[in-house]
């Protein structure tokens, strides 16, 4: 049993590696890695080395952005699910992603109007606003659903979905108010895309995702305890209150940074943990690290599809939703309702 499990995991890791390589190779035009290597060895200046230059300035940053985004969203999904003890909690169903997106847009509008500068409270305004909104959303949803001793999962999800809708109508409003020349960019961003150029977005993503991911991964054993029973966990020395605050903050921060950089990309935080759980079982010590890998690889694969599916670029958010939506409905059909009476 465990041997089969580990071979499946090994196969997944191999496949992920293949996807990453494919993501470097395939695009509007396929790149020959051999050619890029020759250009590198010959120390050709970049402007005379077309293959190497596309690889370095487009494919690698883009692949890294997809990996970081997918890994971060999958891990955020895992963490929210663990914390709220509910398999449907994700950055999207809780409204965190939409609120973050609203915050990011508000920052753009305010910057256009000259009300705020590029930095706010010492952080880049866009990320800062995204985080403030995402954090406020999480907190509000949580408070709405919590009673003294327990949190109601159904209230939580309904509150989250409602907050998400409110945030979306807020986004519509900012869209309505935005300068016409912003609209094109705004619409493109709202559909999500990891088609970054250069390394600046990658560095922002890395700075936001990596520390949060390390922190969250370090909570895996505590999530196992907490998921089994909050009281038993506390008895075994898990500081439940601290765990909740830390997860809320890091989960929201990570989501906010991702959303503000690549736009809202739906369903990754839902389908990846669910699929990975089938292989690893519910224990977070295995589930969370593997979700990071699979999430990254999944978004990479979606991004390859985004480049190849239609002439031009298909927004990646549309692709993940087209895959994730039916998957979600499939889950709804398959699950026993008693599973949710938690």
């Amino acid at each position, binding site marked *: 049993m465990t041997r089969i499990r580990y071979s499946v995991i090994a196969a997944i890791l191999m496949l992920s590696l293949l996807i990453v390589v494919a993501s470097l190779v395939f695009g509007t035009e396929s790149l020959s890695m051999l050619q890029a290597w020759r250009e590198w060895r010959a120390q050709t200046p970049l402007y005379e080395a077309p293959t190497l230059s596309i690889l370095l300035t487009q494919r690698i940053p883009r692949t890294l952005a997809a990996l970081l985004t997918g890994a971060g969203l999958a891990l955020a999904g895992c963490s929210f699910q663990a914390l709220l003890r509910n398999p449907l909690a994700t950055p999207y169903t809780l409204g965190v992603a939409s609120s973050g997106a609203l915050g990011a847009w508000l920052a753009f509008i305010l910057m256009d109007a000259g009300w705020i500068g590029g930095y706010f409270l010492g952080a880049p305004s866009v990320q800062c606003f995204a985080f403030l909104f995402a954090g406020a959303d999480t907190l509000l949803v949580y408070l709405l659903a919590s009673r003294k001793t327990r949190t109601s999962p159904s209230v939580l999800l309904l509150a989250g979905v409602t907050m998400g809708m409110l945030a979306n109508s807020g986004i519509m409003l900012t869209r309505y108010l935005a300068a016409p020349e912003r609209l094109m960019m705004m619409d493109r961003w709202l559909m999500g895309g990891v088609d970054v150029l250069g390394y600046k977005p990658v560095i922002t993503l890395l700075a936001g995702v990596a520390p949060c991911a390390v922190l969250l991964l*370090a909570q895996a*054993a505590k999530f196992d305890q907490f998921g*089994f029973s909050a009281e038993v966990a506390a008895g*075994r*020395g*898990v500081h439940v209150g601290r765990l909740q605050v830390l997860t809320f903050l890091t989960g929201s921060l990570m989501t906010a940074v991702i959303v503000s950089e690549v736009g809202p990309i739906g369903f990754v935080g839902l389908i990846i943990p669910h699929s990975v759980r089938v292989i690893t079982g*519910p224990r977070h*010590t295995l589930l969370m690290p593997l979700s990071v890998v699979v999430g990254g690889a999944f978004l990479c694969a979606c991004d390859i599809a985004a480049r190849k599916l239609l002439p031009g670029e298909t927004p990646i958010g549309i692709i993940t939703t087209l895959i994730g939506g039916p998957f979600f409905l499939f889950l709804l059909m398959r699950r026993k309702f008693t599973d949710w009476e938690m």
Partner: protein
Amino acid sequence: MSHTLEANAISYAYEAGSDVLRAVNLSVHGGKITGLVGPNGSGKSTLLRLLCGLLRPQQGSVMLDGRPLAAFSGKERARMIAFLPQSVNPAFSLSVFEVVCLGRYPYTGVLGALRGQDLEVARRCLRDTGTEELHSRDFMSLSGGERQRVLLASILAQEPRLLLLDEPTSALDIHHEAEVFELLRRLAHQGYGIAVVTHDLNLAAQYCGALILLSQDHTVLASGSPGQVLTEDKLSAAYGAVIRVGTHPFAGTPLVAAQPMGGAQ
């Protein structure tokens, strides 16, 4: 070395103004079983939560071997004291063995990795509670009584010195209930200190060295040996009902029964 957990005049209120416990004194000694009894809502579960540091008393103090409980780190405390709550509701399903392995948490590092020795302890605890044959079953699919025994195994896997058990036998049949109390007695002989909440006054009388009787007004109405605590007037006052006490047919300990309201016999 034998360990002692002591509560000195602790009071607690979930909401300001309505005390759930008032000035309760209690000690749990290595080698002894202390029974906590009293009517529903009298504060027994709350008392256990205070004793293991999940709640902090608003007045009074809880000391472990003469040191304030709050001065211990979480894992340090969990290696000394294990707490079995009245009920658990897992958010996901685990196998019985995985559940027992969760008990090793206080001995693991950040990654939560288990060593061979941890698995060995988990296996031993399954044997001790007579649940080896459930080893690979899904915990959620067990009967209420089977769950309680597995939970007890997972608490024992913490290898604590003191056990705080909240109604560990409420779902057990009479045979398994007696088995669990026998296990507790063996553990006490090995030096464990045990505090157990139970509604089964007759078993409490047989197995507990000392009893604490909480009353509906959230104070300790009586404490001492079962013979001292389990008397008709004390029990009737605590439960607000007519309680009769006789003698157990073969254990010789008090035998308690409630007389139904208006049921003249």
